[in-house]
């Protein structure tokens, strides 16, 4: 046989058709909003509500992608704000989570289990439930209407997942490596820097990517509540600028959405390989 597919991965033709049908169904469900959003962004505004509704755009053009910058002059700033908030949040999360995950993976201390459980429990609340207490907290800290108002709660809600993800990764680093370093006279910190950090790098990358994406997508609610300064508005709020007094500029809104998520898409695109291998590496040795 010329094929080198392992026996366990071989399927009959009808099984293959079934598998692909399943994947197609799933993909249609997930991707169709994006497809329609993209098609809307190509349509002239006047044709949007033409009846009968046409799925495929007539007189389609990319005009909305250039006019969107004029309708909302601050849009570039919003995209930058989003990137900035997510970037800072990711850096802060990593600085806190890397040592914390190591501690949870290696040290036995009273309350370790309950603490890990508590982190999971925090994740069960969405930020929205806690918005009022958070608001009071932000106000007393005096960070309302600053970048910190969006970064701090974002970081708080991103830490639990990041700790769980990285702890699992760090548990897989053999303990003997640390023992060997200890026998050779290395301090905890030296071992952490020279041995653990380099070995945990794929795991840290995974955490960085997921944290960045989540920070990018979750800033909406905090921005809406804790910030009223236009200059600090991130992308999701910025999109509201396309909601005019009389009408919504749908085509430009859709175009702006796609332009807005482009930076995140580019990040994912380049790190995708790392992301996948990192995550599966956590499952199988």
């Amino acid at each position, binding site marked *: 046989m010329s094929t080198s597919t392992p026996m366990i991965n071989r399927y009959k033709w009808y099984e293959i058709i079934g598998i692909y049908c399943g994947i197609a169904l799933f993909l249609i469900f997930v991707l169709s909003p994006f497809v329609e959003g993209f098609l809307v962004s190509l349509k002239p505004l006047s044709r949007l509500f033409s009846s009968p509704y046409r799925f495929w755009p007539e007189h389609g053009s990319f005009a909305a992608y250039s006019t969107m910058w004029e309708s909302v002059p601050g849009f570039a700033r919003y995209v930058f704000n989003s990137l900035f908030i997510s970037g800072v949040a990711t850096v802060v999360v990593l600085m806190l989570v890397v040592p914390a995950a190591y501690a949870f993976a290696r040290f036995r201390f009273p309350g370790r289990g309950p603490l890990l459980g508590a982190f999971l429990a925090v994740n069960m609340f969405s930020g929205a439930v806690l918005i009022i207490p958070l608001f009071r907290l932000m106000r007393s800290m005096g960070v309302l209407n600053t970048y910190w108002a969006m970064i701090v709660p974002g970081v708080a809600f991103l830490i639990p997942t990041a700790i769980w993800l990285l702890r699992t990764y760090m548990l897989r680093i*053999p303990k*003997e*490596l640390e*023992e*060997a*370093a*200890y*026998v*050779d*006279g*290395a301090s905890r910190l*030296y071992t952490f820097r*020279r*041995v653990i950090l*380099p*070995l945990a790098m794929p795991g840290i990358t995974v955490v960085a990517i997921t944290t960045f994406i989540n920070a990018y997508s979750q800033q909406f609610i905090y921005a809406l509540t804790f910030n009223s300064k236009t200059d600090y508005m991130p992308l999701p709020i910025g999109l509201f600028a396309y909601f005019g007094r009389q009408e919504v500029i749908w085509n430009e809104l859709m175009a702006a959405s796609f332009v807005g998520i482009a930076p995140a898409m580019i990040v994912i695109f380049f790190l995708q390989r790392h992301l996948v291998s990192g995550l599966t590496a956590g499952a199988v040795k």
Partner: protein
Amino acid sequence: MRSVLGQLHLNKVTKSFGDIKVIKGVTLDIQDGEFVVFVGPSGCGKSTLLRIIAGLDDATTGDIVIDGAKVNDLAPVNRGIAMVFQSYALYPHMTVFENIAFPLRVEKMPEAELTAKVEAVAKVLQLDQRLQQKPGALSGGQRQRVAIGRAIVREPKIFLFDEPLSNLDAALRADMRIELTKMHHDLAATMIYVTHDQIEAMTMADRIVVLNGGFVSQVGKPLELYHKPQNKFVAGFIGNPKMNFLPATCTAAGPDGVTVTCEGQTIMVPVEPRNGLIGKTLTLGIRPEHIHLGKGDIRFDVVPTVVERLGVNTIVYATATGAEPFSAMLPGAANVSVDTPSTIGFNAADCHLFDGADQALERRTDLHEIDMAQLAAQSA
């Protein structure tokens, strides 16, 4: 070559994990330059004992003394020990050079001196062509050598090995065994070696420490353990296939030995007698390699159930009259076959006797096989 001493003394060391006592009081003296092997079945505490000596685990009670200084509270590096782990514990992201250099980097040794030392060690271990490779690119034996190199480079007083060969295949294991013995000779360092493999213990050790259930069962030279096991456990543990045990009744005890009845026959075993043995049920031990086909002071019939032909000898497994399985190692291609009764026998001089508490009655064997001077005199 070396001026550092590596004398180790364990004084009543115990170790408990919670309520479970793993080491139940070990007192042991290890001389400078000795190759000592800790051997015992899984869970006997041999690895734990090694980790206590290393300073990775602390002793619950008792003292660890190296060169006259109590080191209980010292970090491993200050004890002057180096350890080779079963899993090698190499740093996968570093080159072989950096792996070996790691202890020196920790010491902040100047670059030139460090390079010279690492290269010298690499040369000894035939790793000089591999210095820029990562451990992942090496074979099992080479990885093992890198791990040893990392231990040697620090020039410790005492080397600790935790089952270092158990991940290698049989052929490589035999090679590494010889290399390690040679290395011990060249370095003249104290080495403590943990294994569950009695071949490694017998071939490499100056002295073997047999551990059983957290106690030291016996300490002695390899052949001493083979010829004069102090108890039934050591007798059964050393030697492969393991020693056969038969029930025997003591009928007389005199200055020449102890007379027992076994399999309905009476023999006099040349062992040190003890008071109050007469009438007691003893255990008679006979090694498979001391069993002969058709002759001996005691003879009886067995029915072989499995026959293994190894060329140099034939191993017969049979059910004897007792419940315990019985094995015999016969020279060459012996004339035995499965399900056909064969008469086997053994001589009284080869027998071991154990009392009701499984303690051996000391054999009257002259240990000429242990004493090299006597051995030389005999062959001359």
